[in-house]
């Protein structure tokens, strides 16, 4: 008989985040009352974070296959073939709730977790990215969160030794009570040496590696699956504490024992720690697992089985070691000063058995723990469509230069240099395109191959029209990769939403997923990994729907890559793609008129693909000197960014007939790029025409000002001052 202390009461069940009907499901599954430890195990396996119970049904619609996909969703990270026998391994994951409660450790362990997901698969991390969303800058908590999250990301990645090469940072009042910290890591492995979680072989040792187990992070995944209300601070003990030094040692030790052929299967201890990792290893391999907790290295004495099973202490791994390789594996781990303990064995019983101090504290069916997790087809309603905005209906008391100055000095568009200079973005000596461009470019080994990577999403669009917003997020990430000359290969998605038990929130999730699926299919840009973060609500107010897309592409010859900086004066500036002057949900509308309404720009995926493929062919053939995709903020912001990156100005032509000036300069029509070339007569115009790609000359580079006909000129230096000033001043940091 399994001892049962304390007694299971409805209150205790509720404290574990389990609904009464879910508890009934447990009783039916095991035919008896669970032990306290077992209840903890169920709560860890069946929370939203681990079971995807609200999203699973809708995730099935995502395209996950392509000839170059080696591993799609379901493992620690996605794996794609990038040629020459090499694979890129990548994933993005959220650490939103912990970062709000304790920003430095929350963000740091978010980075640690995603790095571990990547090297668990046998890949050495070569780059990290992130996507951060904070509340309104005037909210009293925002500054503290920015400072803590940035120091946490830098503190972890810098010490671990991975360059943080890209990301995005946005501010909106809807994130006041829930910041978003989405961390992405990209690793490199040999395509035929990928490691998986599924255990094989009966009676093999299950080995615990890495840091010791402490009482930190207990119930972290359950906390991350609930809304915030009063007393969020009291949840601070559920946030784990990171140790990047231990992670660095764990990386080196893991790669070394993989190389030595010691590893049969491997799973990192992330959310829900030892419970989740052991169950996944067994369930995926159709094996049982028996653990003896007496052998688990603990940081403090007297830890109970319950605490050990639910601890989310960081920098830990579980492995099944090849027969006869225990001593060799142990020697490697001892060399790196890490703990190594045999904590169990694989069995043929398909049971998950946990023993502690001679007693069995859990004995559960291992497959059902995962497979029988609740699956909900939650009711949802479609987000009502909004009407497009007619530019003629807008009353604006600003000049074009005045609007540009406001926009590029606003929180969302202001330079994020203050942030990315706190991240080591140069280590490993492969960062070809540094932060600040459309996508980062990281050389692969000695080249000439390189990977391009980016994170993107426009939450305003997703809120107004989840389907178009979902499409746009994928298209935008794809476009960022194209703009540096890469062939986009695959994406990872980090779906951040509010409480799925509300039909309108569920409708956002369903709509965004449909949009993501449609765009991913049309652009041959499959989803290979991802993460779902729900319940991002505080006091009943949800965040903007934020399905962050992390995209990865490949360049066969890195020397061909092109940045957004104007290269020479006297070159033609060309606009690719069609401009109708779409102002609904634009940054212009939000920042200047304080309106967030109207239909967001529709995404024509066929045009997206046609225009993007055309731009990439120009880059590959060396016909262009600078490329920038036109995204939120519109054409004039894009041109300003190209000027700021170089110091070279631009003389622009008047808007074409039929497009309003506001719509022309600040509209957010999709599938557009600005390119420059020394001689537009080098065949680009003719080729565009043949390819059916809209193209027009819109001006020329030169001087040190941006000029628009009939408006006062805008000196590039003055624009830069505005662009660089906001963030350091906001953070009270001074400009050095």
């Amino acid at each position, binding site marked *: 008989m399994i001892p049962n202390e304390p007694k299971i009461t409805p209150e205790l069940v509720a404290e574990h985040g389990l609904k009464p009907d879910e508890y009934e499901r447990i009783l039916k599954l095991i035919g008896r009352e669970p032990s306290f430890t077992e209840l903890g195990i169920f709560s860890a396996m069946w929370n939203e974070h681990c079971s995807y119970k609200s999203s699973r049904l809708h995730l099935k619609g995502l395209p996950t296959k392509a000839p170059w996909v080696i591993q799609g969703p379901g493992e620690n990270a996605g794996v794609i073939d990038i040629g020459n026998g090499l694979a890129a391994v990548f994933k993005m994951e959220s650490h939103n709730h912990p970062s709000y409660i304790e920003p430095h450790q929350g963000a740091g362990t978010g980075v640690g977790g995603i790095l571990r997901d990547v090297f668990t698969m046998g890949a050495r991390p070569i780059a990290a990215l992130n996507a951060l969303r904070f509340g309104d800058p005037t909210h009293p908590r925002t500054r503290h969160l920015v400072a803590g999250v940035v120091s946490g990301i830098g503190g972890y990645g*810098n*010490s671990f030794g991975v360059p943080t090469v890209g990301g995005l940072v946005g501010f909106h009042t809807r994130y006041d009570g829930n910041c978003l910290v989405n961390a992405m890591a990209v690793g490199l492995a040999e395509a035929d040496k990928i490691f998986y979680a599924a255990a094989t072989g009966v009676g093999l040792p299950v080995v615990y590696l890495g840091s010791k187990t402490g009482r930190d992070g207990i119930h972290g995944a359950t906390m991350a699956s609930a809304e915030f209300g009063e007393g969020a601070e009291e949840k601070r003990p559920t946030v784990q504490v990171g140790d990047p030094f231990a992670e660095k040692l764990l990386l080196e030790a893991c790669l070394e024992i993989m190389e030595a052929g010691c590893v049969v299967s491997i799973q990192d201890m992330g959310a829900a720690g030892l419970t989740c990792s052991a169950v996944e290893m067994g369930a995926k391999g159709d094996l049982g697992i028996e653990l003896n907790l007496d052998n688990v290295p603990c940081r403090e004495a007297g830890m109970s089985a319950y605490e050990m099973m639910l601890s989310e202490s960081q920098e830990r791994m579980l492995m099944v070691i090849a027969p006869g390789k225990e001593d060799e594996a142990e020697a490697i781990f001892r060399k790196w000063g890490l703990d190594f303990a045999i904590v169990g064995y694989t069995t043929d019983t398909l049971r998950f058995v946990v023993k502690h101090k001679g007693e069995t504290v859990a004995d559960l069916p291992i497959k059902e723990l995962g497979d029988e997790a609740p699956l909900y087809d939650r009711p949802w309603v479609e987000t009502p469509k909004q009407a497009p905005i007619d530019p003629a209906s807008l009353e604006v008391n600003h000049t074009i230069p005045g609007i540009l100055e406001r926009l590029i000095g606003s929180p969302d568009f202001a330079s994020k240099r203050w942030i990315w200079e*706190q991240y080591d973005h140069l280590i490993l000596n492969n960062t*070809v395109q540094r932060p600040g461009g459309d996508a980062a470019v990281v050389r692969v080994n000695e080249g000439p191959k390189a990977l391009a990577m980016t994170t993107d999403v426009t939450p305003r669009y997703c809120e107004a029209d989840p389907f178009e917003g979902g499409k746009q997020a994928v298209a935008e990430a794809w476009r960022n990769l194209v703009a540096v000359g890469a062939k986009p290969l695959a994406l990872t998605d980090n779906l951040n939403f509010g409480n799925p038990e509300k039909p309108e929130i569920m409708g956002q999730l369903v709509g965004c997923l449909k949009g993501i699926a449609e765009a991913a299919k049309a652009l041959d840009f499959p989803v290979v990994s991802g993460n779902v973060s729900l319940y991002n609500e505080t006091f009943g107010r949800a965040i903007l729907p934020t399905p962050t897309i992390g995209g990865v592409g490949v360049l066969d010859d*890195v020397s061909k890559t092109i940045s957004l900086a104007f290269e020479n004066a006297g070159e033609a500036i060309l606009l690719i793609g069609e401009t109708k002057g779409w102002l609904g949900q634009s940054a212009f509308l939000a920042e200047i008129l304080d309106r967030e309404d109207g239909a967001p720009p529709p995404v024509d995926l066929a045009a997206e693909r046609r225009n993007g493929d055309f731009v990439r062919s120009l880059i590959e053939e060396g016909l262009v000197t600078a490329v920038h995709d036109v995204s939120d903020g519109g054409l004039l912001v894009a041109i300003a960014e190209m000027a700021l990156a170089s110091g070279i100005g631009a003389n622009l032509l008047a808007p074409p007939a039929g497009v309003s000036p506001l719509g022309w300069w600040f509209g957010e029509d999709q599938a557009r790029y600005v390119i420059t070339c020394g001689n537009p007569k080098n065949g680009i115009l003719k080729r565009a025409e043949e390819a059916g790609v809209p193209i027009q000359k819109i001006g020329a580079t030169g001087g040190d000002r941006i000029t628009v006909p009939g408006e006062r000129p805008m000196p590039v230096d003055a624009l830069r001052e505005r662009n660089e000033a906001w963030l350091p001043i906001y953070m009270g*940091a001074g400009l050095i």
Partner: protein
Amino acid sequence: MKAAVIVFPGSNREGDVARALKAVSGHSPAMVWHAETALPAGTDLVVLPGGFSYGDYLRCGAIAARAGIMDAVRAHAARGGLVLGICNGFQILCESGLLPGVLVRNARLRFICREALLRVERIDTPYTRKYAKGAVIRIPVAHGEGNYTADAETLRRLEGEGRVIFRYVTTAGQRDDEQVLNGAANSIAGIASEKLNVLGLMPHPENHVDPLVGPTDGRPLFESLAGVLERA
């Protein structure tokens, strides 16, 4: 050139410096584990690389300075052998007594990764002979604790003996101690031992040797070493 790069737990730029040495000299350095007690026979140059040895959990470099291999490194330096410490390596050199002073937290308390401008203060050292005297070079920094400080007497001695080898300067090429990015005393970026055979610097010349990833102003440092060692 026979070079040895010491690898401590938590070192993370050992690969970058090994790559730079290989690119410039054609030879890969030996990678030497911190727990060893002797350098490979015939070692000419010892490099203490950047990183976070032992997590920088005590003072930066304090634990590494007491690693098994460090007695051999001190003996090598005492014989006049070349020892180059970059970033965490510079911190280790200070903690191990091979260079004076200490590196404390950046004045603004934040990690800084950016290109810095350095002035090469003298070129009659084994590390700088391929630079032009007074040259202003672009070399990136990536550190949270690069704020060099020492007592007034030590600073006077360093300056008097011409042992400040690299100094942070403004875009105009001028020293400005008020504006220095990490708060370092006298805008010091790198110093040498009395015999000029030990050099410690915070910036990362190894990250600026390859035109594909940035400027190549770090290259002459490694070319200087390769030249010296070939003649030896």
